[in-house]
């Protein structure tokens, strides 16, 4: 009988009991004797020179332990927050990497840029004291948006980045694209905005620094998706602390969506300050601070052109994108609009020639970096809006134009013109599964029925492919990555047969404690309750790269399989010894080690006992113990893909758009826990709908954040979305990792925005509306309808 907690079982998330009963341990929950609280004083100006800071009154305020400024950190030789990916310009020169100090030194460059830290007995005292700090700002003109940055004569943020250009990069064959356009029967052009988003993890960022003068050890407890990465970056580049004296712990973390990948200045501030004052220093962001200072997402302006032949086959794609980096380079900011965006511009289609150029600009806004999907939603949105527009212009059904251009499964593995090799995929199957689920044939009747109620109904399709589990390390390194992209795992059997797994990946909502335990339960035929998953502590787990880019199962799970392979190999030898059989005669099935052709068998628990109490053990051949570690560096990305279909109804009087149906058909390769996968897809879709209809980060011209709270930043809520129909198939598993898994964390976000907007434009087609930028807010939709009315009347 199959293990009820094994691969393919919808095991309920084991971690949820503590989360739902309020027994999780988040950074803010941890209390230390003698701890202090830090409050970060932040710039109220988007761009200003700091002429002076007077902290004397603050230092003398009640309860204050210390006040530090950028000058204090400079005096201690504290370095700049590093950028993890070097991009090269078209001419081969390196990008601009201006310094990014944890506390600003001579200049502030966005509203929220730290200018001082006040450390006091209580947060209230720290805040009171911060009001006594006098900062002499000399205000400078602000560059608060990409459009402002593109203006001639825009103010410069960094002396060493003329024109505010970080890099001007390209990918693909421009000449081949030009030649294809010259042959085209039809060219579709579109200008697109990919709206800026604010991540909004449920738990705000927090960090606590501790220093033990007896041992010289620093401990940073932080809301991170990847504690080892933080240890490496902060230890080596910012504070100069060697790894063996720096422990980074990421305990329970309440959501990240990418925003907690990066090394933030606050982490360095509390770690450094804890040693300065000789007491623990804790900082927890307030929600307003999160809005101002978490790395934001997206923010692209793109010009796109698609060349087609007379039958609607794609000949070439040309893309020119301007991407916002914000005021400073966040950890992986530079890789997002390049290697995680332009490389995905083939989508699911056999477009033979693609050329993309991406210019990254500095602006007086919060840093911009990876946010769920990270480059891939931007690519999917661009392609799928363009394909829909082309279909409409050429009079081809939107499903048919996609089908005509799919990379067929027979063509796998398929090398795209933008540097990726898709190992597997069956794109037509996704669409074939989706069409009956959404009753495409019945759409006209639904549209007519909605019209009778005064509503405009539209249907939208989006296909997507994403590249997950970024790898291999050597190729990424050649492209500018400054970190490895492998993952680690250790499988430690205990003497009585229970298991602790140490993984370098990190769970902050993904459910590793369940899914990873299922892999172990399945492999060794043991109850899932006998398996513990440990993650998030550099003192416990081997060096790992953490969780981002839907990589945990594909990379971390594969490392776990490799470690289990090692355990099994050793266990086989022990089993052979125990049963006095030849190792070659041992057969392993569901955790039973049997001698072929006999009824002799031992279980893994017996073997573990023998390994730790090695009375009957091949000591001349094997070491005691059953504890194995493995690192796994993938050969390629994995390529989850799918087809998402959305139906909307629009009230033309008010402009309100309701998502009335949403169907996702996905190929995540092999699925370990369908329940968790479906949950990941649900959350992703909601975030995609959020970007399409509600979410929008807006700065005014002076660089003040207008959407700095939930009063103005529209988050999707449960009643904004319908019940979803979520299906998957396992007919095209990943070919190069041992589990055949691809990743599911970002898929919903990647497909949903495009599907929603294609549905919105479809609903508005009768008004002659061919495009609308996200978010399709009521006012924006109403205005588009209103502005089209005179044109319609004139016809």
């Amino acid at each position, binding site marked *: 009988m199959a293990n009820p907690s094994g691969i393919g079982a919808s095991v309920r998330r084991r971690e949820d009991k503590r989360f739902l009963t309020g027994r999780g341990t988040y950074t803010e929950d941890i209390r230390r004797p003698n701890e202090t609280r830090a409050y970060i004083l932040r710039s109220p100006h988007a761009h200003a020179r700091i002429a002076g800071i007077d902290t004397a009154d603050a230092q003398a305020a009640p309860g204050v332990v210390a006040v530090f400024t950028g000058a204090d950190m400079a005096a201690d030789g504290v370095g700049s927050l590093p950028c993890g990916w070097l991009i090269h310009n078209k001419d081969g020169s390196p990008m601009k990497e201006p310094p990014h100090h944890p506390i600003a030194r001579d200049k502030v460059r966005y509203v929220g840029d730290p200018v001082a830290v006040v450390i006091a007995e209580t947060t*209230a005292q720290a805040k009171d004291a911060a009001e006594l700090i006098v900062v002499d700002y000399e205000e400078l003109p602000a560059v608060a948006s990409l459009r402002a940055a593109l203006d001639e004569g825009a103010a410069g943020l960094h002396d060493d980045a003329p024109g505010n250009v970080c890099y001007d990069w390209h990918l693909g064959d421009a000449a081949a694209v030009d030649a294809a356009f010259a042959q085209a029967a039809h060219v579709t052009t579109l200008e697109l905005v990919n709206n800026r988003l604010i991540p909004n993890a449920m738990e705000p960022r927090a960090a606590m620094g501790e220093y033990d003068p007896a041992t010289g050890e620093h401990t940073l407890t932080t809301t991170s998706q990847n504690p080892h990465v933080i240890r490496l970056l902060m230890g080596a580049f910012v504070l100069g602390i060697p790894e063996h004296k720096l422990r980074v712990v990421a305990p329970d973390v309440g959501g990240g969506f990418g925003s907690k990948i990066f090394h933030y200045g606050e982490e360095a501030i509390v770690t450094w300050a804890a040693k300065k004052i000789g007491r623990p220093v804790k900082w927890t962001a307030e929600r307003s601070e999160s809005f101002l200072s978490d790395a934001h997402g997206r923010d692209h302006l793109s010009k796109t052109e698609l060349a087609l032949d007379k039958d609607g086959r794609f000949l070439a794609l040309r893309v020119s994108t301007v991407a916002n980096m914000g005021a400073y380079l966040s950890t992986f900011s530079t890789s997002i609009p390049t290697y995680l965006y332009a490389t995905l511009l083939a989508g699911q289609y056999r477009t033979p020639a693609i050329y993309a150029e991406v210019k990254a600009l500095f602006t007086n806004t919060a840093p911009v970096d990876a946010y769920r999907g990270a480059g891939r939603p931007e690519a999917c949105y661009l392609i799928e809006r363009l394909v829909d527009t082309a279909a409409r212009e050429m009079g081809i059904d939107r499903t048919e134009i996609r089908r005509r251009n799919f990379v067929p499964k027979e063509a796998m593995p398929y090398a795209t013109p933008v540097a990726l090799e898709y190992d597997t995929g069956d794109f037509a199957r996704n669409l074939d599964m989706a069409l009956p689920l959404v009753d495409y044939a019945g759409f006209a009747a639904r549209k007519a029925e909605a019209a009778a109620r005064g509503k405009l109904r539209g249907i939208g399709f989006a296909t997507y492919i994403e590249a997950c589990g970024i790898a291999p390390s050597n190729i990424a390194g050649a492209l500018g990555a400054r970190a490895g992209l492998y993952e680690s795992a250790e499988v430690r059997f205990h003497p009585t047969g229970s298991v602790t797994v140490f993984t370098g990946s990190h769970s902050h909502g993904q459910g590793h404690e369940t899914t990873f335990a299922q892999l172990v339960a399945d492999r060794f035929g043991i109850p899932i309750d006998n398996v513990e998953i440990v993650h998030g502590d550099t003192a416990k787990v081997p060096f790992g790269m953490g969780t981002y880019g839907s990589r945990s199962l594909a990379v971390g799970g594969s490392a776990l399989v490799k470690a289990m392979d090692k355990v099994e190999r050793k266990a086989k030898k022990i089993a052979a010894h125990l049963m006095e059989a030849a190792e070659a005669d041992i057969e392993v099935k569901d955790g039973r080690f049997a001698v072929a052709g006999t009824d002799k068998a031992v279980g893994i628990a017996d073997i573990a006992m023998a390994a730790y109490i090695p009375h009957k053990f091949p000591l001349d051949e094997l070491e005691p113990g059953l504890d194995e570690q493995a690192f796994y560096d993938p050969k390629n990305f994995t390529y989850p893909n799918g087809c998402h279909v959305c139906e909307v109804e629009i009230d033309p009087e008010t402009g309100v758009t309701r998502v009335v149906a949403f169907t996702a058909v996905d190929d995540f390769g092999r699925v370990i826990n369908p329940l968790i996968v479906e949950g990941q897809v649900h959350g992703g879709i909601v975030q995609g709908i959020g970007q399409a209809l509600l979410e929008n980060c807006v700065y005014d011209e002076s660089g003040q954040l*207008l*959407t700095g709270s939930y009063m103005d930043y529209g988050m999707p809520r449960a009643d904004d979305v319908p019940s979803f129909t979520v299906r998957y198939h396992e007919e095209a598993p990943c070919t190069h990792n041992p589990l055949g898994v691809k990743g599911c964390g970002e898929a919903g976000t990647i497909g949903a925005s495009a599907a929603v907007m294609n549905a919105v434009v479809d609903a508005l087609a009768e008004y002659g509306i061919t495009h609308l930028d996200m978010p399709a807010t009521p006012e924006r939709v109403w205005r588009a309808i209103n502005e089209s009315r005179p044109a319609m009347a004139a016809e």
Partner: protein
Amino acid sequence: MYAFEYQRPATLADAVAALTRSEDARPLSGGMTLLPTLKQRLAQPSELVDLSGVPDLQGVREEDGALLIGAFTRHADVAAGETVRRRIPALARLAESIGDRQVRNRGTLGGSIANADPAADYPAAVVALNATVRTDRREIAGDDFFTGLFETALEPGELVVGVRFPVPDAAAYAKFRHPASRYALVGVFVARFGAEVRLAVTGAGPSVFRVPEMETALASDFRPEAIAGITVDADGLNGDIHAAPDYRAHLVTVMARRAVAACG
């Protein structure tokens, strides 16, 4: 928040005395606006006078054919109250549409109208239902109570005790929610008393306002079609990143029609 003194008087007289003693004392009702304001350090009262212990401020009762609702009555109690649902169901539904469950279980009628947020719901009902605001020292007609953006006719230290709502023959409230906050971007309350119709708009302007042209049209023809062609001037209406004044003006007509339609 900054430090402040706190007291919880047991009688109306003690509450008023506490509020008049100190210029910087503030009444604390549900705290749905005051507490976030304090947390953001945007206000620094010397003293908070918690009204939750004053029995005179609570509850709903009928009085000469009208409903008298105590200032400290929570939205949830207005929404669920048998008397309100039977006599002025539109008012119960309005209360049910405020914020979320947590807000409705804390926020109060008196707190809402005394704060006079331009996007609050209750002001539309107070004006359209021709209600009277009762304070510790006088009665103020609904039409005269709201005087501007976060401004009312209340004098320093004056406390709202309750609101007296006449019972209409028909009434309804139609709200267009702000996409982010879900406050009223535009909310229209319409009420018919015999031959008279009153229609008040919240959310669209700095303060609640009536639309006399619509009231006149509806008085002679109480159907949505009667006001379909009547628009309010966008000049002077609120504008922000979610809705420019012309969009709000458009929504006033749409929501007014829907409110009339909802009167059945």
